């Protein structure tokens, strides 16, 4: 596990890190000796890409795939439902659950 004050890498295989506190847009964090510029506000528990991830590539957390990138993701970008999709079933939120009801 790689720790900083702000971020945890839960497994060496992971291409995302988890925020252990809120991180403001524009903050600099150092990961694996490299400085990373945070491009959006990140809330506690959210994930950010630590390397460039291409659309279709697996996202690894805990060393295990949690789904695939639905678009290209840049280092330092938030990884969430807008660019990560399940390999099993769609994730519904309050905003898109009408799609489920409409089935």
């Amino acid at each position, binding site marked *: 596990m790689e*720790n900083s*004050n702000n971020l*945890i890498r*839960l497994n060496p295989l992971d291409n995302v890190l*988890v925020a*252990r*506190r809120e991180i403001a847009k524009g903050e600099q964090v150092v990961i694996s000796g490299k400085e990373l510029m945070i491009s959006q506000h990140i*809330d*506690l*528990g*959210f*994930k950010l890409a630590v390397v460039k991830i291409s659309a279709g590539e697996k996202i690894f*957390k*805990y060393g*295990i*795939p*949690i*789904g695939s990138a639905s678009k290209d993701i840049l280092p330092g970008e938030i*990884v*969430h*439902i807008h660019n*990560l*999709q*399940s*390999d*099993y*079933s*769609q*994730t*519904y*939120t*309050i905003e898109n*659950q009408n799609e*489920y009801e409409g*089935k």
Partner: protein
Amino acid sequence: MKGSKWEGYIRKDGRKGIRNLILVAYLVECAHHVSTEIAIPYKHDGVQVIGFGGCYPNKHADRVMKRLCTHPNVGAVLLVSLGCESFNKRSLANTIEESGRPVNTLVIQETGGTRKTVAEGRRWVEETRLILKETPKVEMGLSDLVVGAICGGSDATSGISGNPAVGMVFDKLSNENSIAIFEETGEMIGCEDHLVSRAQTLGLAEELRKSMQKAARYYTVMGHASFAPGNADGGLSTIEEKSLGAYSKSGSSKISGLLKPGDIPEKGGLYLLDVVPDGEPRFGFPNINDNAEISELISCGCHIILFITGRGSVVGSAISPVIKICANPKTYDRMSDDMDVNAGKVILGDADLQTIADEILAKIHEISMGNKSASEGLGHQEFVLQYKSFQPAGPSCLP
């Protein structure tokens, strides 16, 4: 902690409980209000309401009600029937009586309506409270306990702090020969191979694999995973991600058996409860909410439920105390009255997982001795029982 004992209640059927409750059980929704009215004066004093709302027969509901009404935390049961529902009240009353517990059945249509049944019910409760005061005590230890674990209102912190800490508690309980039960195969999607590799026997591995395939198929038919909008608001993106966090609450011990609701293991160890119905999907979602899962865990004999939450759930349960473990430090700050353990300290780097696991074990001990958990003290006694259908568990499922 090691070797510490406390006093519990011994039942005539030999089972040991950590509470000495009277249940008022409605046998159809039409008898729910009358049951609630009977219990209200004693709500904070050991009288709780459970029941089944449906008017159509269901073997699963029948079996779960029998298990709950003879649960070791339960000393006596008052059944409240409207009179025309299909629930087999005689069979339930017989089962309770055979277990040596005082039981009485009130039929609202025969007793003469709401007011008379409430008065009659309270009279019986008053008398029975005196009888239960005489319940013999017995020494209990960790090896007598059945402990269930569930996560609800999960967010991205649940799988990092609360769930892995409970996993360590589960390893300790399995070592101490307690029975530890985790659940929800629908929240182990993505973890199949690892789960199966932990089976104690090859036969059980096969059963675990089948139950995981059943869950994946069932949720595919439903078209909706076990995933709520709040999970995404809390940083979880996919069911696989939620599953990996949820799965960590099972710890690292070998899995001794696979249970269906109402199956009560006889030997200590780690068990998985399969809550997904068998056969073609008939009655909708496997579990409509967290309390539906908690009721089923308790039907397998759980004395205590460990409930890990990140977003902040407030629920408790009828019958067995719920210990609330808060995974998210921000949630804990806002809702500490509802929480028993602050696992969010792990996220901030102020505690390690072992420290939190030790705190949870200390809570288990304290609450087994009779102290109230946070939700219990606040009067939470939620209860949900759904229509479901199950085939009996296969011979390889139990050790």
